[in-house]
């Protein structure tokens, strides 16, 4: 069907690949780490948890060096334009490495995983695989690469979700995650195929060039975008693609829940931004002609629905993990607000918000795990009277929750501030969206505060008293997360500036 490429062509292909490999070092390094971890697990046998965790953290931190070196490299698209090395990607690389490290830290303290009978080698390896996959999601500039990286993340995530094989909830979560994930990735793929059919290109930049040059069929376009949105929305956990998230977040091992809710979501957003900003034509013409529906209106609807649904349904939750799951749907809504603005300020706001979400959500889950270690459950009722018994953890959890609400002086507030600034900078166009955001924030306060309410304001059902001991390491991690959340709430300049620097690659594509 196709001609075999000639020797010269092959040589040029190989030289391109060789050239690109130099820009791909962090990913290669982490893939090697993945294999090293598996080998390490196989070699060391059963009693290797500490070693594995240490190796994972050390390995992940080692990758920072390579990412750092990339900062001075020229920004290029390599591997035939499939992959990009740019600031945007580097920002997310740092982000995912940090989230990976935090995931290991949360894993180490989790009692549920400690009791897990089989080894943890796969666990850490899959964790690293997810980091690689998410890095690639953030840096892919080609439909194929996007799909592959997304599947890498998804497949690892399925396995991680069902990691507690003996735990019915974990298996159930994995099944649900899998079923919804498979369907949505199928839809995403079908959308990609339509887009490919319209443009005969898979590179994002070239797709946009073709679309700009030749125009497109609006019906096919809207169909493709809808299908792609389904896939991305699933990763982001936005309404109406959220069905999986409460069950999965509740059932999965808590460190995995935290990881999914932060990192996987962020990867979805990174991909969404790259895809929609670069590939698909956009603009504000829908306000010129109301009949012209484009992806922006879809995003607006999704965002509003996510904020409302996530926050409202969270009110009735009795399980803290589930509560955080619903709240994470809401946060996806807030994040989408920043994308809707379609400008650099909005994008910057999204990155800042993600960074904030990383700290505060991880912090919250960290404390939830520590509490679950003691009480053996994540039910709100079991939080009664804990505030007195774990003073540091209680205070830290309160700070994280306040940050999730978006109250000063926390990092979460800065995230919301930037998002709303971006919205209002557009004038009164998105005022109603901002209003929804603000009103749902008030709702979120109610359910978030249920946790401190139970911890501090209610008396424990059990007669136990006295301070519950937590390990020194756990205390240090909690305290540093708390301090960082507060610190960046007051001095967010470096992160916000870095976020701005990272978003500048979209300059030409945004209006």
């Amino acid at each position: 069907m196709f001609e075999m490429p000639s020797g010269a062509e092959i040589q040029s292909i190989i030289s391109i690949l060789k050239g690109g490999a130099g820009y791909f070092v962090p990913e290669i390094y982490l893939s090697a780490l993945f294999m090293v971890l598996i080998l390490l697990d196989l070699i060391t046998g059963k009693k290797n948890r500490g070693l594995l965790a240490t190796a994972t953290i050390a390995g992940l931190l080692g990758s920072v060096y390579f990412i750092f070196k990339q900062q001075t490299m020229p920004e290029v698209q390599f591997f035939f334009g499939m992959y990009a090395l740019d600031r945007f990607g580097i920002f997310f690389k740092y982000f995912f490495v940090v989230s990976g490290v935090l995931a290991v830290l949360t894993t180490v303290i989790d009692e549920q995983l400690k009791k897990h009978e089989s080894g943890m080698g796969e666990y850490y390896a899959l964790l690293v695989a997810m980091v690689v996959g998410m890095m690639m999601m953030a840096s892919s500039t080609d439909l194929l690469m996007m799909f592959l990286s997304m599947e890498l993340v998804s497949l690892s995530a399925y396995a991680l979700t069902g990691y507690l094989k003996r735990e019915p909830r974990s298996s159930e979560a994995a099944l649900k995650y899998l079923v919804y994930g498979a369907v949505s990735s199928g839809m995403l793929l079908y959308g990609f195929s339509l887009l490919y059919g319209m443009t005969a290109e898979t590179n994002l930049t070239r797709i946009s060039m073709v679309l700009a040059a030749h125009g497109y069929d609006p019906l096919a376009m809207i169909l493709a975008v809808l299908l792609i949105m389904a896939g991305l929305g699933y990763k982001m956990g936005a309404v109406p693609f959220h069905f999986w998230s409460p069950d999965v977040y509740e059932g999965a091992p808590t460190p995995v829940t935290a990881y999914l809710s932060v990192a996987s979501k962020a990867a979805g957003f990174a991909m969404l931004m790259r895809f929609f900003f670069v590939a698909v034509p956009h603009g504000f013409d829908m306000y010129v002609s109301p009949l012209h529906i484009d992806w922006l209106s879809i995003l607006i609807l999704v965002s509003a629905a996510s904020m409302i649904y996530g926050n409202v349904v969270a009110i009735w939750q009795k399980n803290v993990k589930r509560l955080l799951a619903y709240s994470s749907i809401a946060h996806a809504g807030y994040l989408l607000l920043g994308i809707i603005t379609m400008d650099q300020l909005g994008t910057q706001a999204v990155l800042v918000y993600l960074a904030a979400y990383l700290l505060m959500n991880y912090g919250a889950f960290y404390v939830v795990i520590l509490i679950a270690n003691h009480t053996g459950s994540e039910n709100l009722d079991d939080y009664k009277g804990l505030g007195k018994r774990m003073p540091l953890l209680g205070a830290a959890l309160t700070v994280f929750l306040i940050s999730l609400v978006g109250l000063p002086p926390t990092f979460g507030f800065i995230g919301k501030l930037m998002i709303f600034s971006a919205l209002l900078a557009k004038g009164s166009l998105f005022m109603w969206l901002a209003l929804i955001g603000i009103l749902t924030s008030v709702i979120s306060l109610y359910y978030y505060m249920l946790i401190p309410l139970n911890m501090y304001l209610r008396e424990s059902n059990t007669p136990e008293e006295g301070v519950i001991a937590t390990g020194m390491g756990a205390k240090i991690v909690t305290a540093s997360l708390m301090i960082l959340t507060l610190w960046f709430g007051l001095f967010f300049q470096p992160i916000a500036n870095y976020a701005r620097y990272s978003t500048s690659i979209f300059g030409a594509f945004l209006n």
Partner: protein
Amino acid sequence: MDQTLSGFGTVFVFLVLGIVFVVGGYLTARMLRPSRPNPEKNSTYECGEHAVGSAWVKFNIRFYVVALIFIIFDVEVVFLYPWATVFKQLGAFALVEVLIFVGILVLGLVYAWVKGDLDWVRPTPNIPKMPEMPVRRSGKANG
């Protein structure tokens, strides 16, 4: 392009002919053979006894594990075939690439090996209960 398509056109003819042969055989046999069914004759064969329970028994979980490992390996091997035809032109770089690729595969195999997923009989109590079937004497060759 034409040639390939005509090649597969021939394959299509093979397919049709194969089906025709089978169907023809069936039809011929139907014309020739007697048909005197009775309930005893039409019952499921179980060594001359009345069949106990249904054939829907649980299989050894190993079968599924084998299926899983097979899927992975098989698809990866598929990738090697196109490579095999051109790798002489591609040279050492492609060889190294493929060695990495195969290395990952081998790692997977080693992993499954060490974790005991290649052992048909595992020490863990994973042997399924088969209430419909009489207990096997030979516990090892389970399947």
